């Protein structure tokens, strides 16, 4: 982006906004007794980088008194979800920790054994242990454990520059979240995830002359209203629907959008790839594809046609257990609409053949000519991204060390592409000390025992046993830190920090937002600042080129060293739209060499994938039956008659967060298991009754929500549950293992490239229990309701 691009995005007013409003206000202004700071928040609290416009009202004493949505934001227009509306309660929560703490290793798991200490002392303890462990075992025995949605999880500089380890590890089996989709897109098209074009980057938004309204939007295994996935403002879907966009919804679970879709395909969980192949087959056989795009810009069309012919609609209908007419209707409706787009969600990643599912969806987008068409799929250009993924590797991780990354031998496609150790093999390394022991850890915005990791008890035992030293970095105590850490470092909320927020984690960015600091809660650092301070303390030579943390943000996020801009030059616009181009493949804007076409070996969208082939994967898509399903495991149907799907989001929580905020907890006080009325009746389960749900991997206690949102063969379990109001000490650990649906989800069932996990397509059984574990909201209110 040029300096001139960092200008306040033009405001498009919502009809419901009154004439008295704050449109046109600068980044900071006075309003009565308040100083108002406009900001685009991005963590903590966690959220994908949407950066919904916020106005923070601070009184004369420097206290945040009022939070309101900022109507100057071109996409969110003043609207907020419950988590930012309650930001004040998060900032001043009595459960927040504002001082570093230490605890003797022998006291791990004892919530009462923490002692407050100074930052200097905490850093000194870290240095002593860090240097000892590096000297004794080597830097590769350090693991940086990351989660999702908070900035800290995206900061490769934590493992590389601060601790010098190649083992940056996202803690979910098979990295089954977004990254498999990014990787598939990168292998096949040369650019990463192509987002639906919702006019977010256009000055006049939906009415912009360059835009064409999407005629048909396919929502594939995605519930964006609740999840705001990867920086996409979910309710933009509703904005489009109100203008006339029609929906096709593909999901085993009914959500609000399914009830508003022209076609809703309620397929059997995990069978999406069969459906996608059949849709391709129909579109090709009925000659509904874009001949010109296929001829000029695709590679391997004939081979793809031949392959998908092995999955006629009739066969897919049987596999997916849906009426065959619906498959025909959906394929035709999608292919005939111009423009049309597919939003492909987390469900695509959470199955063993997720990479094939992605491959098919990308092929659908390509052969219908919807790539880089206004209102179609926006393709990230050659200039996308901010050099963040690789940050710090070159200087701090010599090749020999880099090659020691866990999983490098078995899953080079995974390790080299995303610069992460392969998660499932990391668990094995922790358990077996092979190929080498893992001795030190630190949390990068992750709570694996309550949320990120599958079979969390296994992780718990492995981490407790292997790690000689572990650092917790967070705002609140949680089960993972309580069980495994020796040091706690507190960090700032989004209201207390500066920083950047690029939607969609940089590729397909439509808005560039900036965080401005409005309040101070004791000089706490953001993750970025902490990395700078701690990194400088441990490795002064690596950080000496930056005078302060501010300059690190500029290097890491704004690419100042490669011609980017400084924070002060650009941040006062608060939010700018990122200039976009359509049809980049015709203009030489996708490839680093400036040639036309796509950034793949053939210069085309590779329907027959050179990269997959090179990594030993089938170059063409194929369907595999979920490993744990009534079809693949008929012998287990009596024992586990139900299909288990997990992980649908709600607006109240960001994964395991916000449970200690009374107003959000009240929206969803208990961990819910959705079960169909007929199934519930058969099993003698009443609505609101507690149930035991179990399978061969583990069990959980949840509260039944009897609903038609799932069909008779399926149940859905909420994820991310722990109970901050409960006893934090071992063995209870805030009840994290009691209602933990991840107990039922295995590790080690990824696809050939190391990606994917079956978290949305497993099997289980359910029975009622007589006890009740209902949350007492009065207790939550007493404990957490009084702000400090």
């Amino acid at each position, binding site marked *: 982006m040029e300096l001139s691009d960092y200008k306040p995005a033009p405001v498009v007013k*919502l*009809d*419901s*906004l*009154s*004439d*008295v*409003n704050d449109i046109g206000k600068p980044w900071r202004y006075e309003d009565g007794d308040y100083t108002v700071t406009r900001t685009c928040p991005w963590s903590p609290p966690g959220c994908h980088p949407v950066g919904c416009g916020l106005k923070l009202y601070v009184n004369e004493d420097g206290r945040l008194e009022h*939070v*309101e*949505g900022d*109507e100057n934001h071109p996409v969110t*227009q*003043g*609207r*907020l*979800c*419950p988590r930012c*509306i*309650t930001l*004040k309660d998060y900032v001043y929560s009595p459960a927040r920790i504002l001082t570093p703490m230490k605890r003797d290793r022998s006291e791990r798991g004892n919530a009462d054994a923490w002692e407050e200490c100074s930052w200097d002392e905490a850093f000194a303890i870290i240095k002593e242990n860090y240097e000892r462990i590096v000297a004794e075992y080597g830097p590769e025995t350090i693991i940086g454990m990351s989660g999702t949605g908070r900035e800290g999880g995206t900061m490769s500089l934590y493992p590389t520059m601060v601790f010098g380890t190649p083992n940056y590890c996202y803690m979910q089996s098979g990295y089954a979240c977004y990254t498999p989709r990014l990787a598939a897109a990168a292998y096949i098209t040369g650019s990463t995830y192509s987002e639906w074009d919702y006019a977010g980057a256009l000055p006049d938004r939906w009415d912009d002359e360059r835009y064409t309204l999407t005629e048909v939007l396919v929502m594939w295994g995605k519930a964006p*209203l*609740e999840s705001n996935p990867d920086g996409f403002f*979910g*309710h933009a879907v*509703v*904005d489009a*629907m*109100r203008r006339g966009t029609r929906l096709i919804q593909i999901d085993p679970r*009914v959500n*609000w959008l*399914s*009830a508003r879709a022209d076609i*809703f395909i309620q397929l059997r969980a995990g069978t999406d790839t069969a459906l996608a192949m059949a849709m391709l087959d129909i579109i090709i056989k009925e000659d509904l594809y874009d001949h010109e795009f296929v001829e000029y810009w695709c590679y391997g069309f004939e081979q793809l046609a031949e392959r998908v012919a092995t999955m006629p609609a009739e066969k897919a209908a049987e596999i997916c257990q849906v009426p065959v007419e619906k498959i025909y209707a959906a394929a035709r409706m999608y292919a005939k609409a111009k423009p049309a787009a597919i939003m492909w969600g987390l469900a695509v990643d959470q199955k063993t053949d997720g990479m094939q599912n992605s491959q098919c969806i990308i092929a659908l987008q390509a052969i219908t000519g919807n790539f880089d068409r206004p209102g179609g799929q926006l393709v990230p250009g050659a200039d996308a991204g901010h050099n963040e993924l690789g940050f710090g590797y070159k200087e701090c991780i010599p090749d020999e060390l880099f090659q020691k990354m866990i999983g490098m031998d078995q899953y080079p496609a995974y390790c080299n592409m995303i610069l992460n150790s392969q998660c499932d093999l990391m668990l094995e390394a922790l358990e077996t000390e092979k190929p080498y022991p893992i001795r030190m850890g630190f949390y990068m915005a992750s709570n694996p025992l309550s949320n990120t990791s599958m079979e969390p008890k296994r992780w718990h035992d492995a981490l407790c046993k292997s790690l000689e030293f572990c650092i917790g970095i967070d705002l609140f105590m949680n089960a993972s830190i309580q069980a495994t850490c020796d040091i706690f470092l507190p960090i700032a909320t989004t209201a207390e920090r500066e920083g950047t927020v690029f939607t969609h984690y940089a590729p397909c960015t439509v808005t560039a937002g900036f965080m401005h600091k409005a309040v101070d809660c004791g000089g706490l650092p953001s993750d970025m600042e902490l990395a700078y301070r701690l990194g400088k303390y441990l490795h002064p030579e690596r950080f000496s080129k930056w005078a302060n943390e501010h300059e690190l943000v500029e290097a890491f996020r704004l690419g100042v060293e490669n011609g980017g801009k400084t924070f002060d030059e650009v941040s006062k616009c608060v939010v700018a739209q990122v200039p976009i181009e359509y049809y980049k493949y015709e203009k030489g804007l996708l490839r680093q060499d400036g040639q036309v076409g796509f950034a793949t070996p053939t210069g085309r969208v590779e329907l027959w994938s050179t990269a997959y082939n090179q990594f030993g994967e089938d170059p063409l898509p194929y369907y595999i039956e979920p490993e744990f399903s009534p079809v693949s495991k008929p012998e287990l149907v009596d024992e586990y008659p139900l299909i288990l799907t997990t992980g649908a989001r709600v*607006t*109240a929580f960001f994964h395991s967060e916000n449970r200690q905020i*009374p*107003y*959000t907890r*009240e*929206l969803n006080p208990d961990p819910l298991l959705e079960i169909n009325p007929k199934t519930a009746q058969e099993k003698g389960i009443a609505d609101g009754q507690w149930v035991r749900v179990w399978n061969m991997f583990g069990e959980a206690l949840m509260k039944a929500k009897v*609903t*038609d*949102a799932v069909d008779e063969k399926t149940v859905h379990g909420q994820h991310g549950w722990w109970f901050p109001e409960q006893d934090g000490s071992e063995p209870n650990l805030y009840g994290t293992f009691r209602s933990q649906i991840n107990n039922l989800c295995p590790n080690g069932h990824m696809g050939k490239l190391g990606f994917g996990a079956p978290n949305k397509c497993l099997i289980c059984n359910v029975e009622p229990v007589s006890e009740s574990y209902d949350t007492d*909201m*009065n207790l*939550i*209110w007493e404990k957490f*309701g009084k702000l400090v």
Partner: protein
Amino acid sequence: MTAYGLLIDYEFCTGCQSCEVACKEIHNIPVGQWGIRVLDDGPWECSDGKFNWNKIPTPTRLCDLCVERTDKGQQPFCVHHCLAGVMQWGTVEDLAKELEEKPNQVLFVPKPYQY
């Protein structure tokens, strides 16, 4: 006296609950009490195979229509934050006209009643 109300387009209300939380924040309402509640009808399947699912945000007897804000010319706090942008505040007279223009809306005219 002019009557004011909230017009809600329930065809597009997604049940996000921002209105509920916004109302509690601005009025400091303790847990267990609400100024507006999103009632939930669905999902249930109709004979044609389509699902019915409507969310109906219903002001309670604690809703004062954010008179402090509207007196200053601002809109109610729930209206400001509604994620789907389906809430409108105005005079009953104006809002009633809008009711005629688009189906699947509901008009509430709340007033904290005392018994």
